[in-house]
């Protein structure tokens, strides 16, 4: 079959359908989304009822941020070819992204029904169960995926997250070790023949601890470095430059490096996020918080500045509303500044935004009643943030590195969490054993922030 991919112009190009579909798929995979969009539109104009064109066009629409259009195209695709397992499998993911978890569940189950031998269909369904907080089901379905493909790293990791979130830490840590086989973990560990540390005693300076994963993870697991240093004194800690001033506060470290080239002479390595497993961590033996503190001079300097910048007699509320956009769960955890409207209406607060990154621009569109001082532009690094937090009445934040920073330095904070949060925040509790100064506010329904914001602001 051929498809005319430019039906409106005089120079109509006709190419075999298979070739056109292949080209479209390749453009999408190569992230050439504008070109893919253009080709999809032209193919659809020529063959508006072709299920696979519709399917690919839907994927392209989704990746271009046109979720409603994507769903419409993919639903039509599925209706036209109801026995194709790939379609409900894809649709399951798109529904998840749109926050339509009931539809996602139906699609995921249909995909599994149509292709019970397809590990990825099971994995997609496991993700939906996690999002719905059906954690036992999530584990069960992830295990089904693993029974079909035992090396399926993402399924292992999903299982780990479900176990950890359920509080089954010991089992969870084992599956959690698969995280370095994830595609996104490439380059996180050094290319080395040296073994991973198993918790045995070592000579001084021979253990390399690697600050893997995000800033928040490193802050959270940094508390285990002194424990590791008891067994392997003066470990070398490799981390990004941003974390250097924080991790250097921890006792027992031999030296801190920010380049692999400086990591010479070690005999074993361990990712920082591997330490809780080795330490046999359960909810009852987590090392205490308070292991980070601001630089006293910097804190005093910020204290004076805030005295000048903020009106007196009002509660100072620090605010972070968005995380790093490239984080895999950012859509779930990040908000728009405008969603904090109940906070803006308060007469008794001044809002100090400690948001960093491109999202600080949103402060430019704030016209609420409560004064808002956008501190982000003046914040150089985590030390500044920590210093500022010493002078606020409370931090209100999403699940991002600043929450960990505040928790590690015992700053009173309110953390708002998605319905299915990251595993470390556990379930059904308003506190966390990791950070006693944090109060947790959870979504009652997936993707619905209004109620959470109302509750957290009422408690300020």
């Amino acid at each position, binding site marked *: 079959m051929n498809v005319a991919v430019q039906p409106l112009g005089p120079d109509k190009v006709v190419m075999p359908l298979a070739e056109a579909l292949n080209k479209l798929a390749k453009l999408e995979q190569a992230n050439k989304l504008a070109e893919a969009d253009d080709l999809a539109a032209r193919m659809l104009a020529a063959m508006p009822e072709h299920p696979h064109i519709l399917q690919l066009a839907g994927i392209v629409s989704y990746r271009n941020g046109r979720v409603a259009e994507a769903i419409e195209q993919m639903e039509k695709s599925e209706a036209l070819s109801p026995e194709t397992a790939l379609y409900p499998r894809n649709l399951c993911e798109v529904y998840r992204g749109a926050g339509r978890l009931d539809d996602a569940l139906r699609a995921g189950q249909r995909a599994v029904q149509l292709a019970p031998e397809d590990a990825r269909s099971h994995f997609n369904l496991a993700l939906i169960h996690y999002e719905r907080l059906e954690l036992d089901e999530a584990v069960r379905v992830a295990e089904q995926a693993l029974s079909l493909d035992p090396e399926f790293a993402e399924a292992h990791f999903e299982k780990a997250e479900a176990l950890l979130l359920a509080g089954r830490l010991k089992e969870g840590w084992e599956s959690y070790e698969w995280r370095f086989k994830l595609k996104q973990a490439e380059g996180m560990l050094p290319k080395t023949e040296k073994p991973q540390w198993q918790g045995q005693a070592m000579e001084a300076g021979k253990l390399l601890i690697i600050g893997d994963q995000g800033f928040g993870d490193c802050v959270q697991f940094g508390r285990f470095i002194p424990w590791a240093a008891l067994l392997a004194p003066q470990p070398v800690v490799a981390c990004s430059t941003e974390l250097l001033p924080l991790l250097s506060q921890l006792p027992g470290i031999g030296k801190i490096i920010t380049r692999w080239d400086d990591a010479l002479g070690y005999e074993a390595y361990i990712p920082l996020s591997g330490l809780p497993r080795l330490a046999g961590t359960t909810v009852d033996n987590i090392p205490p918080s308070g292991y980070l503190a601001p630089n006293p001079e910097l804190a005093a300097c910020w204290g004076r500045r805030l005295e000048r910048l903020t*009106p007196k007699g009002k509660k100072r509320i620090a605010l972070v509303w968005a995380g790093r956009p490239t984080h895999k769960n950012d859509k779930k955890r990040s908000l728009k500044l405008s969603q904090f409207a109940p906070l803006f209406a308060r007469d008794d607060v001044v809002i100090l935004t400690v948001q960093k990154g491109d999202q*600080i621009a949103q402060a*430019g569109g704030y016209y609420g009643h409560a004064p808002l001082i*956008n501190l982000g532009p*003046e914040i150089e690094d985590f030390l500044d943030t920590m210093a500022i937090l010493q002078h606020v009445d409370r931090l209100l934040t999403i699940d991002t590195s600043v929450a960990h920073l505040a928790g590690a330095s015992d700053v009173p904070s309110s953390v708002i969490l998605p319905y299915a949060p990251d595993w470390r925040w556990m379930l059904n509790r308003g506190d966390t054993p990791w950070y006693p100064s944090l109060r947790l506010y959870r979504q009652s329904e997936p993707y619905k922030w209004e109620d959470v914001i109302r509750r957290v602001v009422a408690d300020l």
Partner: protein
Amino acid sequence: MSLGTTDGLCSCGSGLRALRCCQADREQWPGQDAVTLLDEKAAEATRLFNKKEHSEAEALALTILDAAPNQRAALRVLFEVRNAQRRIKAADALGARLAGLPGPPALRALASGQYAQYLVGQGRHAEALPFAAAAVKAAPKVAQTHHVLGVVFTETGAVLAGERHYRQALALLGREDGMVLGNLAWNLKLQGRLSDAEALYEKALTLRPDNPRGVGGRAQVIFTKGERARADALLDEALACWPQDRMLRLLKVMADLACQRPQAALERLGPPEAQMPPELLARGRAFMQLGQKQEAISAIAAARMTQRERTGKVYQPAALLARVARDEAYFTADRVRHLPRAGTGPFMPVFLLGFPRAGSSLLEQLLAQLPGFASGDETAPVAELARAAEGLLSGGYPECLDEMLVGEAARVPNQLRQMYEAPRQKIGLARPGVQFITDRAASNVWHLGLIKLLYPEAPVIHVLRHPYDLVLSNIAQDRKLEGDAQAGLPGLAQYFALHARMIRHYRGQLTLRYLPVRYEDLVMDPDAVVSRVLTFIGMEAALPSGFALNNRPVAEPLPAHFAGREAVHRRSAWRFKDYQAAMPNLFSEVAPVLDPWVREFGYEERGA
């Protein structure tokens, strides 16, 4: 080779061949000896012109200039002829050429001075500046050159420089001159030094009583001082002397409108057929006061149409857009964070932002009633410091600010801050007891980045008003805005959007001590809003009783907007709603531009 027109005549309309006019190669001009041979003929052309035999003078001048384009007297004649004919493009070219001719200082001063006066006469003060300055440089001991430069500086906002040159003119004259004194009085009025201005006007009008402009200026001084009855009487007296003087009549109409006498204003203006745009706009405002919405909009539309027809002026956003794009690219958080800042100074400016007609002048007036405050209004705006920065650093603004990262240039923020403070000290704004000086310069909206470097912790109070009310109010005002945005509602809407975009950018990228307040809240509950502002800027002050009457004595200098001082009232808030009800399509064209800002400013949720 193209000569501009097919017959070889210059496209400027001088009547000369292009090669003898705008496309002339100055290197090829005849030498002074050759030019002198034509002096007698040129003198003849001058005589003809003086005898008002313009055609003959013109023909002779053209002949002479075809032979010697640099013959000064002939050039002067042709310039005068074209000026008399209102052939502006030609007169511009000839006048500028005349001013640029080499020659003895006295002649150069004369030519530059005359050309500067020519431009001043057309209200082109900024263009006149280099010629007026050249005249002073060529003849520093000639009073008239200083007088013209004084006018130019005063009318371009450099009032302190203007005062200096007026005083130099007086000193060089060695006597009191009514015209110079009158202009100096106007200058002092613009500085807010009303008592000094009034005293000078008295003196000037004694010397030159035949000066209706001076009388008008004096009336405005008295009006701004709050002595409205006296100002009214003075204007009545002047109108009795000069009943046909449109400027005096319009001033009286303004006084009527400020005193809420719209009917009297309409009667004074007379029938609309003969009215000029400023009069038609006043007519529109009078109808607004009377609540006659259709008539108001008709008068305003007629005024704007006439203006567009006469001047061809429409909103010209290109330069503004380029500036915004340049400043957005430069002033980013990561760049500004590392630039040096000035230290603290003897007083704290309080920057009052707001689109024209948003209500920042009302806020300035209310704050002025409190101890510790002085009203700086538009005095020596930060925009001038942006130009000064280009001189102190190398390169264009704002990129030149990068130089402050290098060596001794780190001191530049302090130097600029001192340049900001000096004029405020000179005119008495920064005086004992004053803690805060408000700065209401309209151009501040573009310069929040530089303000951040000079006064990193200065409060920025942004007066918001519903965007529909803003464009409605502005379209009725006889005020020139940047890019000629006043030409019509669409231009106003786009100009507003550009303002709002710039403020949003700066607020997103800089740590500003910024507080938005709403005009609608200010007029509804002035005590609450002003108290909120005071709390924000860290001042503990109890508001005096009757604060909202806005009539407490305020020390000079007093900005011009104090002329419109009145008790806080609510009649202008949400005014657009009535207009929209009466004329449902009035805002249709501007809605796509304004509505996103209506939402962003939070007016939608307030039921607007």
